[in-house]
């Protein structure tokens, strides 16, 4: 080939290469086509080359990876079962009809508090305002129900108020999220307890739900938390206290929805002996 022709060929090919480079940088499809062609033609050759020594080691490694995956699956399943057993065997669900569920989504409200979504819905028998508990205690109540999922307002949300009994004496009170205008500062994640003046909470008292008509929205006697601090007496009508919730709102996993059982029989009167 004469030298000028060769030079011309070089220029043409180099320009084509530069054009293809620019096309690839610009993200045009033609570069992908070239790429695919390269893989199509030379890929089988490479496969043949790299399979020159079919060794035991590769087979064993593959098997190892498969077994590892299987083991991880089984461990996950066992952990789930353990959590479920703990939930069903705990005092919060004892004697109640419950529907096991697990958290599939969670959302932090800008007003504070948290909403979680459970994988059970109206088709499973969940109704609005059902109580949701975990093995440790009260989680919250169902606020919205879809056919296959339901949304739960977790304890400590801005507009959740729970009527409670405090301590062995059973003093009445309410538990809510610490309000912005609260006179006392409370640690993050804790709840505010308000009791009527004569009865006061003591540090270490267990706070349980008071219960409502037909077990909605809160069933009776479920642990809400423990009193960790009592506000000083300023002579108000009500006394405040800080409650540490029994559950960790950031780590809710397996929970149970309590299926309410409304009374159908009138309660019989009892005559006491003198």
């Amino acid at each position, binding site marked *: 080939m004469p030298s000028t022709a060769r030079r011309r060929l*070089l220029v043409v090919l180099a320009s084509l290469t530069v054009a293809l*480079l620019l096309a*690839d940088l610009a993200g045009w499809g033609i570069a992908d086509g070239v790429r695919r062609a*390269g893989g199509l033609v030379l890929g089988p050759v490479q496969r043949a080359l790299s399979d020159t020594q079919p060794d035991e080691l590769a087979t064993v490694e593959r098997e190892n990876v498969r077994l590892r995956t299987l083991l991880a699956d089984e461990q996950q399943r066992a952990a789930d079962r353990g959590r479920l057993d703990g939930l069903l065997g705990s005092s919060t669900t004892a004697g109640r009809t419950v529907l096991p569920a697990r958290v599939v989504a969670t959302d932090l409200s800008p007003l504070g508090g948290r909403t979680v979504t459970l994988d059970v819905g109206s088709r499973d028998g969940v109704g609005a305002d059902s109580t949701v508990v975990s093995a440790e205690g009260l989680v919250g109540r169902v606020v919205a129900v879809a056919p296959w999922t339901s949304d739960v307002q977790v304890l400590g949300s801005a507009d959740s108020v729970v009527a409670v009994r405090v301590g062995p004496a059973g003093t009445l009170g309410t538990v809510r999220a610490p309000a912005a205008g609260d006179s006392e500062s409370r640690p993050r994640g804790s709840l505010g307890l308000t009791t009527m003046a004569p009865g006061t909470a003591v540090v270490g008292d267990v706070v349980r739900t008071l219960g409502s008509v037909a077990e909605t929205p809160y069933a009776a006697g479920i642990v809400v938390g423990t009193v960790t601090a009592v506000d000083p007496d300023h002579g108000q009508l009500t006394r405040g206290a800080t409650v540490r919730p029994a559950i960790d709102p950031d780590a809710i996993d397996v929970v149970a929805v309590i299926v309410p059982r409304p009374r159908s029989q009138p309660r019989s009167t009892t005559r006491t002996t003198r």
Partner: protein
Amino acid sequence: MRPTLLGVLRTAYVVVAALMTATLLPRLGVPPQWVPDLVLVGVVATAVLRGPVHGALTGLLAGWVVELVPPVGSPLGLMPLVTMLGGLVAGLFRRSSSRSWLRAPAALLCAAAVVLSGRVASAVLAEGGVDLADGASRLLATVLLGLVLLPALLVVDRALVRRRLG
């Protein structure tokens, strides 16, 4: 243009070398930073005998073979251009008068340096950082292999040309 034996051999060498560099050598346990650039050795062997234009043309075509062997390079077309420059530089070492055996390795060293700087530049542009030690060891491996391989390739090339097969 009739395909000559030399042209067929050269094409076969480039394809086999590209496949070896990409597939066989890593498979045989050669650490990636010590895999020599076998294709570049072939390009230099042709370029030192025939000059810059021929070297650049061979480098461009061989670079395309390297580029198209999976894993296909990205951005597509950079490697052919860099190899073309390498072939061009190696072609500048053609001297019909001098027959020093050091000429070909020196050409290979320069071509490998061109290819390395092209790689480093693209890596810096794409990732913002580069491991120079890796590149340097690849260059060293290429030149060391070239010291052995280049004389053999040149002898074969000259013999084929003498028998009017190239």
